[in-house]
């Protein structure tokens, strides 16, 4: 249904389906996708936070485990039969939605999360391109961000290959999926409105004998450091980034001036305190350790499965040898 487009497999793997609510949601990274996924799973009734303790993935915090299929309990579009996929993508009964965010705020958030905090994921490799600037044991956030902008403009394609830095136009492909709602998370109240829509769909879809349909409220799961963009980014850097994401401004009608007007031509260096810098290093070290454990577990599991498969094959052959044709496996 999504055709032979190069992005079709990615979209099918990424898009989440809540069959009871009749909702398809494409989680746009760095556009409140953690919050929205949790809201949908809660309303769908498939959310099982207690399973988070069994997930061997490498997220930054417990909130992030919502992205594990076993925790959110939602289906991926790629797991469904073609007939159901066709219905989901075309039926007017289905809510097909995604979220967007002002490109400059989004790229700043992606930098803060992926590169500054070193959250797990492919973007960690990009951290080598954007070294920290540290002066007297204090991280210079302004200079570090300027380093990122420089690296981004020289290696735009490399950055854009990562979902967190990819343009939203390419990420959500509105030309391939006919969304009937695109929620702009910068708009005040947008998430609250979405929560109301989802709760209403739950009520409409519930059986009259149900005690009470599932409700949700938007609760922003903030994992940033809360340092305003204007303290770190000057107009020149902003222009470089906005030009790189021009297609998003054109496609979704974001205003370039909205954020730009809050910025200054020059910003003074913004230093993290020595304690903040140490805490940041502790956080990175903890994330690295979490990654080590997850990777080690993956390697061991792969090995265990191989051993199990070998044992199964040996047992299978042995049983066949004894039961069916003894000469065949001699």
């Amino acid at each position, binding site marked *: 249904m999504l055709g032979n487009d190069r992005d079709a497999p990615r979209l099918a793997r990424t898009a989440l389906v809540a069959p009871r609510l009749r909702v398809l949601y494409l989680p746009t990274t760095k556009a409140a996708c953690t919050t929205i996924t949790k809201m949908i799973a809660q309303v769908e009734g498939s959310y*099982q936070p207690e*399973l*988070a*303790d*069994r*997930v*061997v*993935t*490498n*997220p*930054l*915090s*417990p*909130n*992030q*485990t919502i992205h594990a*299929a*076993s925790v959110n*309990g939602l*289906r991926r579009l790629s*797991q469904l039969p073609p007939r159901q996929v066709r219905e989901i993508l075309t039926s007017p009964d289905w809510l097909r939605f995604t979220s967007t965010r002002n490109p400059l705020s989004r790229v700043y958030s992606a930098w803060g999360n992926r590169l500054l*905090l070193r959250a797990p994921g492919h973007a960690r490799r990009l951290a080598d391109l954007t070294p920290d600037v540290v002066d007297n044991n204090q991280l210079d956030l302004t200079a570090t961000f300027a380093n990122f902008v420089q690296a981004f403009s020289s290696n735009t394609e490399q950055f854009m290959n990562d979902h967190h830095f990819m343009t939203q136009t390419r990420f959500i492909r509105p030309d391939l999926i006919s969304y009937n709602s695109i929620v702009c998370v910068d708009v005040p109240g947008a998430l609250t409105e979405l929560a109301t829509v989802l709760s209403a769909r739950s009520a409409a879809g519930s059986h009259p004998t149900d005690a009470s349909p599932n409700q949700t409220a938007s609760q922003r799961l903030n*994992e*940033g*450091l*809360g*340092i305003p963009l204007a303290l770190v980014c000057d107009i020149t850097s902003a222009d470089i980034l906005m030009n790189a994401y021009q297609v998003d401004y054109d496609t979704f009608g974001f205003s370039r001036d909205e954020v730009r007007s809050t910025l200054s031509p020059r910003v003074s260096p913004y230093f*993290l*305190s*020595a*304690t*903040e810098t*140490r*805490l*940041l290093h*502790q*956080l990175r*070290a*903890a*994330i*690295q*350790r*979490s990654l*080590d*454990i*997850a*990777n*080690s*577990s993956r*390697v*061991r*599991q792969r090995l*265990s499965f191989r051993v*199990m498969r070998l044992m*199964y094959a040996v047992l299978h052959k042995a049983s066949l040898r004894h039961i069916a044709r003894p000469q065949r496996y001699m």
Partner: protein
Amino acid sequence: MTIPTLHHATLVAPRLKVLYTPTLKAACTAIKWMLAEAAGTLDTDAITRLLAANAHRSQTIHNPRVHGLTPISSLSAREIDEILTSDEWVRLATLRNPVSRSYSAWENRVLMRVSSHVRDIEILSPDIMVDGRIDMTASFSVFAEALRNHTDVFMRDPHFVPQSTVVQPAIIDYNMLVQVDKPDGVGQIASMLSERSSKTIVPQRHNESIGVPLRQVCSEATAAIIRQVYQSDYTTFGFTADAFEHSPEHYVLSRTETQLVTLVRQSIERITSVSRAAQAKMSARYGIVQVRKALLRKLSLGYWYSTPRGMNW
């Protein structure tokens, strides 16, 4: 000679002829790194293979696969006897001023929530918040009160156990007792190890402190409580009772610092969960359940256990 249970953590490096009793929160991470490096038993390749819930890579040195040192409990009585009496052996233990050690333990176990064995400790010494920020001075004071009123609970965590319980000169005749918070305390140990191993052993900082000075957080009243709890340490080792300000200006973390503390706590919580889950997936029971599910999935032509949740759990 037999070694009491409490000394089972004591390690030896036979080639260097060094015995070391690690005292938690007295540079034991740094010393184990140096000792393993000097003894040539350090295996850094093992670090990424471990599933243990250590908060940082540097903490994996406490795993025997990484440090490779010999636990004294694994030696014969004759070998132990020689180690404990021979002049050729260095019998090393480290100490730290109890107030400074308690602050370090509080910061690590309570403030940062580094995988504590005793959950009650976090409940007994909550964060004191001021306008959404952590008041370090008030929080540390509440901790000291809790330590005095619920000493038995805190003593379940080895990080809070008095040093006089761990380092018992009556059982082991230590000929090198080093106070690590004195200038060049760790440096002395590095020199000894360099000399014995003919390698250049440099003390590495494995600093997990957030760098807030003790004097800005600890009042005289708080220090007095800690001195009272750890009286046995003062009596046994003759620590000096440093004076603190009676009413220091409260040290309150910034919003960003508070947010970073929250993020570190969450990350450490995840490490514990991931480690537990990873170890569970290594069990034979998990393997058998998975094989059974795979068979049932095949028999039911994909009807049973076909969702991600069903496949894994």
